[in-house]
């Protein structure tokens, strides 16, 4: 749950008094035109950025002052929009990093390895496990991102534009994966521009524009708000149905 978060960069207000409440076990989506402050919000939640004002509560606990790594230990995991694999390592090793340092501490390297393999299977990168990261395609890199984040056994998973660049069938597959993740008890907060996927997945949606929340509700409710339609007019990325 976020309360009144604000964050500026220089003179640019990125996020202004944003308040969101995400319930456990929900799939919650944040949408909005480019530059609306969505990625900044993710950075604030995962701990890479500190807010200028406001609080972040996770499971009832105020984590606003907590740095990034402890937040992961509490159970917040995320993927990155610009894919950032650890390029010196194989796919499996990448996932193992999440496994070894995440929310659940494995009993041994072997146990971590097995868990990591299971995560890879869940996400669909099992055949690539021993390959180095160079030369992987977009879809596979996205899956790697997800696998790595999943390996930290998060209670809250932040998915940053995982649908971008995927073919419709890959997107379908990803939707299935995300649903299974949620069914496993993980709360999902996602950012995306691919509206069809958002519509399929999200139980609740918040629309951001210029760092402010301009609408909140189910996908259908939000799509009809005049403020939302106006925000998207002229935007290329996805169109409200």
């Amino acid at each position: 749950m976020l309360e009144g978060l604000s964050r500026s960069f220089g003179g640019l207000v990125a996020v202004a008094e944003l308040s969101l409440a995400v319930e456990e076990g929900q799939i919650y989506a944040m949408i909005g035109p480019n530059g609306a402050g969505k990625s900044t919000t993710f950075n604030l939640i995962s701990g890479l950025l500190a807010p200028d004002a406001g609080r972040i509560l996770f499971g009832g606990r105020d984590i606003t002052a907590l740095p990034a790594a402890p937040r992961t230990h509490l159970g917040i995991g995320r993927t990155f929009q610009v894919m950032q694999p650890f390029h010196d390592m194989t796919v499996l090793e990448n996932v193992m990093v999440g496994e070894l340092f995440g929310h659940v501490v494995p009993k041994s390297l072997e146990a971590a390895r097995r868990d990591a393999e299971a995560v890879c299977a869940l996400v669909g990168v099992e055949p690539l496990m021993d390959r180095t990261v160079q030369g992987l395609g977009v879809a596979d890199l996205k899956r790697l991102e997800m696998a790595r984040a999943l390996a930290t056994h998060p209670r809250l998973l932040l998915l940053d534009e995982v649908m971008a660049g995927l073919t419709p069938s890959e997107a379908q597959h990803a939707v299935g994966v995300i649903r299974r993740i949620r069914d496993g008890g993980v709360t999902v907060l996602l950012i995306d521009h691919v509206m069809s996927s958002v519509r399929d997945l999200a139980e609740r949606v918040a629309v951001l524009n210029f760092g402010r929340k301009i609408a909140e509700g189910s996908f259908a409710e939000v799509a009809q708000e005049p403020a939302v339609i106006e925000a998207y007019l002229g935007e290329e990325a996805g169109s409200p149905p």
Partner: protein
Amino acid sequence: MTAGRGISLAVALILAVAFPFWANEAQPYYLQIAINIIIFAVLALSWDILARTGQLSLAHAAFYGLGAYTSALLTLRAGLAVIPAMLAGALLAAIVAAGLGVLTLRLRGIYFAIATLAFSETLRVTTNQLQFTGAATGLVAPPLLGGQRVVQYLAILTVLVLVVLVSWLVNRSRLYFAFTAIRTNEDVAATMGVDVVRYKVFAFVVSAFFAGITGAYYAHVFLFISPIEAYSLAVSVGALVAPIFGGLYTTAGPVIGAVALRLVEEFLRSAIRSGYLIIYGLILAVVILYMPSGLAGVWATMRGRRRV
């Protein structure tokens, strides 16, 4: 580790241990060279361990010199016995590294390197100034283990085995994942739950400890240190070129690089009395330009493997 690998390593170790006894009788000069090579190898490995977290130090000599001077001063002024003094020297180097590590946490790549270089230069200059540290004239230190070359050799060989073990363990454990993640991208590593601060400082401390003990060893084996030698650029440059040449982030790479480079250096030294460091500059430039993964990379490519 395969049986074949294990056996060859064991054989190598036995030969290494037997070597000094033979050399002392037959060719004492070889023993000297061997000691130098091992010192270099320890230094190179210690640098590599730090480099695995992405902290490329341009001034490993700082810790080398700190170890040397602390140990020498403790034996000369405080009357401490040699071996405890050496350990104390290494410990001090490690503590200073912890402090420096914390200070430089937020400095990325180049800035970190500059900071280390500036640190080393400053140490050199202040040591040069203070009467307490012997100023420019330097210090004469008491010998280790009675000056017996054979025993001294075995001592540094032990240190080498130790640091090889540490390096090997690091690459086999959780630490490998932590270090590599931090090196690649600190922010992402933190998001995956890696405690970046702890691991960076840890690497720094371990690295400095071994550099420090090498410096202290040098002081008590070669019996004389001065700011120019202890904080010399030659040490810093050597410590970084050897791993780059031999293969970064591996255990074998720095050792191979150290042996190869030191042999070349010995050869050059007989031809050119000073300025032989030029070969390091040349090799560094050539490796960066043409062989980014060093000797180990070339080897791996030839054998069709990705990682040594």
